[in-house]
């Protein structure tokens, strides 16, 4: 495509790309810059570019921040694990068109998953609050984890299924002829061949569970150490003007995400477009 673009147009594109880069980089940079200012400094001149960087703010918030990260890690890891363990077999089952009856099951299953995936979360939180309370699951991590799983499971299955569909049915047929059971086919063909998809879905679920806050702020009692999202929500409402604290917390609590991002961004780029559209 490159060859067919004229010189001036090319120049314009280069400029536009830089504008785009700035639109996304400046806010990020501003978070980091502000987190390195002291409280009085931020109050005095919130937009100063020249200042003496200090780690004071980080010293103040690191205690709360690390505790929250620990809680979030528990939640996000548990949710990711369960979603994967449950979603991989489901994606396998929904990709095997073995009989007309089963194809109908697949069609219905997919429709249900799509609808569940579309239900807005600020709305599921209302009945879930009551349902979890009824079952004694309100106010503990188990209830929150279960709610998160239900929230992300449809997404996980839908994202994995295109990867499962890409496995050629002839592989399964060959295995069947050799006498492999369905479990064996699943374990020896599907799981190894899905590794790319599993990795992508793992990152996406972890990222989403890490950022989830609507359930977190409603299903956990006040005394409990909040997860990252809960802490940020609290900071946002109670300490409205402590920008440096808020920005330092934002940086701190995004660090684990940065790790996931560095590990997975290439796959995310391609995997997302595949899973989301197909």
């Amino acid at each position: 495509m490159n060859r067919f673009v004229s010189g001036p147009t090319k120049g314009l594109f280069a400029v536009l790309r830089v504008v785009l880069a700035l639109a996304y980089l400046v806010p990020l940079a501003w978070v980091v810059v502000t987190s390195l200012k002291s409280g009085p400094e931020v109050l005095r001149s919130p937009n100063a570019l020249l200042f003496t960087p200090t780690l004071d703010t980080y010293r103040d918030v690191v205690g709360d921040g690390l505790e929250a990260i620990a809680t979030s890690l528990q939640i996000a890891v548990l949710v990711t694990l369960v979603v994967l363990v449950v979603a991989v077999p489901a994606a396998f089952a929904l990709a095997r068109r073995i009989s007309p009856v089963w194809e109908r099951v697949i069609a219905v299953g997919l429709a249900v998953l799509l609808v569940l995936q579309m239900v807005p979360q600020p709305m599921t939180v209302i009945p879930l609050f009551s349902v979890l309370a009824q079952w004694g699951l309100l106010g503990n991590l188990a209830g929150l984890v279960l709610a998160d799983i239900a929230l992300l499971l449809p997404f996980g299955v839908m994202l994995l299924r295109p990867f499962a569909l890409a496995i050629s049915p002839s592989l399964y047929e060959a295995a069947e002829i050799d006498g492999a059971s369905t479990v064996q086919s699943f374990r020896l063909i599907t799981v190894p061949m899905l590794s790319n998809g599993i990795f992508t879905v793992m990152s996406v679920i972890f990222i989403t569970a890490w950022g989830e806050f609507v359930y977190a702020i409603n299903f956990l009692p006040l005394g409990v150490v909040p997860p990252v999202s809960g802490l940020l929500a609290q900071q946002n409402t109670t300490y409205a003007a402590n920008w440096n604290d808020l920005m330092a917390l934002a940086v701190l609590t995004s660090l684990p995400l940065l790790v996931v991002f560095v590990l997975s961004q290439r796959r995310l780029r391609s995997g997302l477009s595949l899973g989301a559209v197909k």
Partner: protein
Amino acid sequence: MTTLGGRTLPAATRTPRRRPGRVRRRPPVVFLLPTAVLLVVFGAYPLLVLVQMSFSDVGPATIIGPWDFVGLDNYADVLGGAEVWRSLLRTVAVAAVLLLSNLVLGFVVASLLSFEGRVTSLVLSVMVFIWALPPLVSGSTWRFLLDDTGLVNAVLGLVGVGPVPWLSEPRLALWSVTAVIAWGALPFSALILRGGLLAVDPQVVEAAAIDGAGYWRTQVQVVLPLLRPTLWILGILTVLYAFKSFDYFYVLTQGGPGTATNTLPVQSYYAAFTDFDMSTGATVAVVAMAVVVALAVPYVRSLRREGDA
């Protein structure tokens, strides 16, 4: 069971139990069961409870139930009031802006990013990172940037404008939040459209170029029609997103000032969890759900047409 060495398939060494071609396939029900159970219990059942709540009198003291059945009273209250219609209108406005930004801007950005290069790969990385960032983090950032003393107003101040009360002026707040939502949603749509662009056969584009069509004319007249299925799905996802979007509202305005930024999800949430009027919250939610389901039908159909199901 025979031992299976490594990842090789079993029984090349073993006599087949069944004759080839007459393999009886059992449907993999067991594989689907855990997902089905979890989603029925924690996904579908709560939705039934939501509908039940919208027909009942649920207050802060009776969250667990049993609830008094009140028929259509909640619906009469909600639909009879002006607020839900205003919220619906706001939700539609947000959806319209997001459609423009996700599809038009998204296509332009995707085109810009379909050239290889150092800046491209930097922009892609930053955009994927923004997508991955918790909305609370990017939302807090924008609350700071849009503050009366924030960076945006400081820059405007340099040219003698402002300070503009982006989030506290009732007529402006909805558009400010929508702009932030659009900023947050653009990476996803640009990535998807870029995936579609890269999948377009280069020969088609070359043929158009040889015929003398300029870059943007080729993009609009040749490439864009090829992306129609992707654009269609992205469009529906975008509208659905407007009916879901809550995080940025929560961080930036909490529905205020007054009710100036109440969309349907925002109104429903705050009715339930700030006013503790679960019935009203549930009723607004069901109204919004009706719209979502109406949109879900063409979405599911278009996915089928793609040959996916």
